[in-house]
């Protein structure tokens, strides 16, 4: 169990770096979709005995994170006809390095944290922290609205991973609420993205700078 879990988590980490280092936004969306779908598998692995609610959570996560949200984003991408380049504030290589530093930090830091015995060997906590940090890096270093949404998704994925530690403790309602809110949030954001496009004929948030001191 732990083996498969760790393998998935490591792949998630690798995908984080890939998202940081890729310039084509379509590839990035696809990667995040795959990442989301992989995360959806985790609840099945964390649990020793399967219950209906766990399976539901897993299916909902796979469908939402892996299918629905990416297709909405790809649609926004197509409607907006933006040129498919991610424009980072800092270059791709520095952002990979930053991401790598964040990951290394997470790996070391998580070793210091007091963890319950059963979670000691699994990489859930470091992966979660690393994903949150990488999400932040993407959020702050990208100008395109869609890229920022991607950063937010990576951030949410990290939180979702941490939630796996608690899946026993958290009732189904909260679990679903997390996914639902994520979904609605992205949905609203995508609508706004379309409006931004209509008004600015670009998805560049650097142009959103008329309100400042």
């Amino acid at each position, binding site marked *: 169990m732990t083996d498969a879990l760790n393998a998935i988590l490591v792949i998630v980490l690798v995908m984080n770096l890939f998202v940081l280092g890729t310039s084509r936004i379509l590839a990035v969306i696809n990667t995040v979709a795959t990442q989301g779908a992989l995360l959806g598998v985790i609840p099945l692995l964390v649990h020793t005995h399967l219950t209906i609610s766990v399976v539901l959570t897993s299916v909902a996560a796979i469908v939402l994170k892996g299918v629905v949200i990416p297709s909405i984003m790809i649609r926004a991408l197509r409607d907006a006809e933006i040129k498919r380049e991610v424009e980072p504030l800092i270059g791709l290589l520095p952002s990979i390095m930053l991401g790598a530093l964040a990951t290394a930090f997470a790996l070391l830091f998580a070793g210091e944290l*007091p*963890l319950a015995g059963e979670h000691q060997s699994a990489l859930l906590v470091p992966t979660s922290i690393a994903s949150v940090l990488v999400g932040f890096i993407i959020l702050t270093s990208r100008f395109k609205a869609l890229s920022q949404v991607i950063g*937010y998704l990576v951030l949410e994925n990290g*939180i979702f991973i*941490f939630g796996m530690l*608690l899946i026993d403790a*958290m009732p189904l309602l909260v679990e679903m*609420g997390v996914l639902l809110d994520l979904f609605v949030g992205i949905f609203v954001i995508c609508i706004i993205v379309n409006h931004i496009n209509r*008004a600015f004929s670009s998805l560049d948030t650097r142009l959103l700078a*008329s309100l400042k001191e």
Partner: protein
Amino acid sequence: MAFVALAIPSNRYRPLLLPITAIAHTSMTVFALTRPDLLTTNEWLMLDPPGRIVLLLVSTLFLLCSFYTVGYLKIKVDRSNRAFTACLLSFIGVVSLVTWSHHLGLMWVAIEATTLVTAPLIYFNQNQRSIEATWKYLLIGSVGIALALLGTFFIAYASLHEGLESTLTFDDVLRIAPKLSKPWLHAGFILLLVGYGTKMGLAPMHTWKPDAYGEAPGVVGALLAGGVTSCAFLALLRFYHICHVAGDSDFTAKLLLFLGIFSMALAGVFMVGQRDFKRMLAYSSVEHMGILVLGLGIGGPALFGTMLHVITNGLTKGVLFLSAGNIHRSFGSKSTDQVRGALRRLPLSGTLFLAGFLAITGSPPFGPFISEFAILNGAFAADRFVVAGLFLFLLLVVFIGMGATVLHVVQGRAGPAENQVPYRDGFLTAAPALVCMLLVLMLGLYIPPPLRRLIEDAVLYLEAKP
């Protein structure tokens, strides 16, 4: 949950539904407050004293705003108000849910929902600037709320780690609070402070606030500044409570005091020389969130003032945003370069704006004076002289900064009439602000015994260690 049910089927037509819902909501709130024993409570939904205070505030504010909205939407007949009305109605629903929820996860969901329903409200004017404001609001707000979720998880893990039954029901968490694993609790509190602090608009996570408040219609600004921030504060209060019970007051006090002072200082700096009076109000909101957090950080003796300040600040912000909305509409501009002589053109709104300014900066005899004075007293009682000194100094800075802008707006002669809109104070747009102002004045002169009892209950509730 009755409130949510009330809000959703009435999503359909005209803004007249707003006052109806608001009256229903207020009466139910009053009913709920007077007869607490009749409420159907379970572990997840329960109205405790701090929740009651916020619920009362939001309900009153929403009642007044709903009347204002009717007048406002009459002016803006050219635009479909369907989404606006629906969002306002769901807003009161989710805000009530925040105050009722006694489950940390449920509360988080409700607060996230407030972000989502208020975003379209900010976007109501549908121009480039409002898109920008909405985008910043959504993005920053969502990130903040995501961090708050992570913090909630940390708290839950803190109990799991110690081998306790893992739970997120507030009462249960309070019960086991002293046994929670300290590192996780601390990390969780920091994340929650940042997360809900973003929602409250504490510096340095306040960057969405001037934009969103500046671009949103006045009534939305009033609801955001009075309602959403109070809800976020309530959420923070819950976790403060947990840490307090867990015996970590020292740790939280340091963080809260620092953030409070920092917010006030930053708001003061930006307020001096601010040329946009709506943005100035936003910074004033940042400042007052700072005051609230500061009061929380002082704890103990300042709690009464803090809880009172939640109410007085919310109501005064209502006055300011509603009257600022009127002035904005009349002059067609928010810049102090073009807006002058509001007292002459809009005697009522202008007066209210001026009075609101005096109230919010803590001049007697208005409500905020009492609450700020109580917080200051608390600071001295808790032997925090440096904090108290800084507090006074920053209030002074804010007073000067704000005063310059406000006096500029209300005094003088109205400029040439090139971009004038034929707008004068109507009954529906001015009266709610007036009522609000009178409430603030009343709170300054006399606090009704039921309210006093409510606040004292809340303070006792927060102080008690089960």
